[in-house]
């Protein structure tokens, strides 16, 4: 199997892979394909350079970054004879949506558009059906904490957890379990009054100030969203802004009416 075919199969299977290519210097066009769970394939033309680039490429892949790096002919740092383009094909980021409500379908649809792998999870079997959420990659009937006990350890900075249940019985265990993950975004829907009540319940459940500060609630940017679709835009906008470090107005930073 050629390097291209291995890359193609990894992309189709959505398994993480990085492709390093010499784009300037000796060995122009030479390639090294790097995978987290298997040895590298191909060569950039020098065993030492291969070793250094394989290590760097795994780091870039973990961060989901695509960049150009410079090396000496044998992988030396602070030299620039060889320019290597490292392209990361990370697995798609994930969005876990708790609550199989009206807003869930719109959020799942928009998240798919943005490239997320989407899971809808609700403990109520009547609502959590694939027929109601055909756009989701996965629909699970489970309590939020049970589901996160299973997948939580695999969530990372690029992943999002959105709690749309509006019901303390589900919200509180979902948020407590979400805070135990490394998810980069944790948001919870509900009015300001609902959230104030929820904060009290979260404190009772042992969540500290640091944990509470991670929760974006009321969920979304302050754009006056009303419909499920507009609300989905407001939530996804907030997720993007949090990732890029921008500060458009989030609802939690303002005090006026949400709609």
């Amino acid at each position, binding site marked *: 199997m050629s390097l291209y075919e291995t890359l193609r199969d990894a992309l189709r299977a959505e398994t993480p892979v990085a492709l390093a290519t010499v784009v300037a210097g000796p060995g122009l066009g030479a390639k090294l394909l790097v995978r987290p769970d298997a040895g590298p394939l191909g060569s950039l033309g020098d065993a030492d350079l291969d070793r250094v680039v394989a290590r760097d490429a795994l780091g870039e892949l973990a961060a989901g970054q695509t960049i150009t790096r410079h090396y000496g002919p044998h992988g030396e740092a602070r030299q620039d004879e060889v320019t290597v383009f490292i*392209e990361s094909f990370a697995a798609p980021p994930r969005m876990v949506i708790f609550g199989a409500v009206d807003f869930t379908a719109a959020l799942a649809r928009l998240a798919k558009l943005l490239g997320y792998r989407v899971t809808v999870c609700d403990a109520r079997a009547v609502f959590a059906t694939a027929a109601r959420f055909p756009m989701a990659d996965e629909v699970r009937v489970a309590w939020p904490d049970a589901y996160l006990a299973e997948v939580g350890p695999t969530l990372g900075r690029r992943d999002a957890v959105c709690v749309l249940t509006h019901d303390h019985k589900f919200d509180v265990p979902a948020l407590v379990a979400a805070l135990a993950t490394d998810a980069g975004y944790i948001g919870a829907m509900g009015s300001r009054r609902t959230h104030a009540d929820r904060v009290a319940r979260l404190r009772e459940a042992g969540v500290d100030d640091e944990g509470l500060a991670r929760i974006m609630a009321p969920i979304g940017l302050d754009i006056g969203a009303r419909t499920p679709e507009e609300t989905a835009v407001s939530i996804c906008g907030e997720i993007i802004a949090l990732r890029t470090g921008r500060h458009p107005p989030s609802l939690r930073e303002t005090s006026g009416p949400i709609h």
Partner: protein
Amino acid sequence: MKDVLGEIERWRAAGRRVAVARVVSVEGSGPRAPGATMAVSEDGEAAGSVSGGCVEGAVLTEALDVLSSGTPRLVSFGYSDDEAFAVGLTCGGTITVFVEPLDW
């Protein structure tokens, strides 16, 4: 790359040679991030894009050249390079594109 796999596979299945052009760096304001890929078949079909449509025509020409010569090349397009290159980016940024035959 993923968004052009379908076209690449179709061309390969038809026995056509393919070149790929990938954005490797962007300076200033650029419309597509590093990794954006345009694939070109030897008979001049194209899929994907490397900019907002500003330089695709020039990249197509580069890709066909690369298929003839068999040698990869690094090409820059930028607002300030109007003497060196006939096409530029209207947004004022500079993009560097690596163009190579898909023979690996």
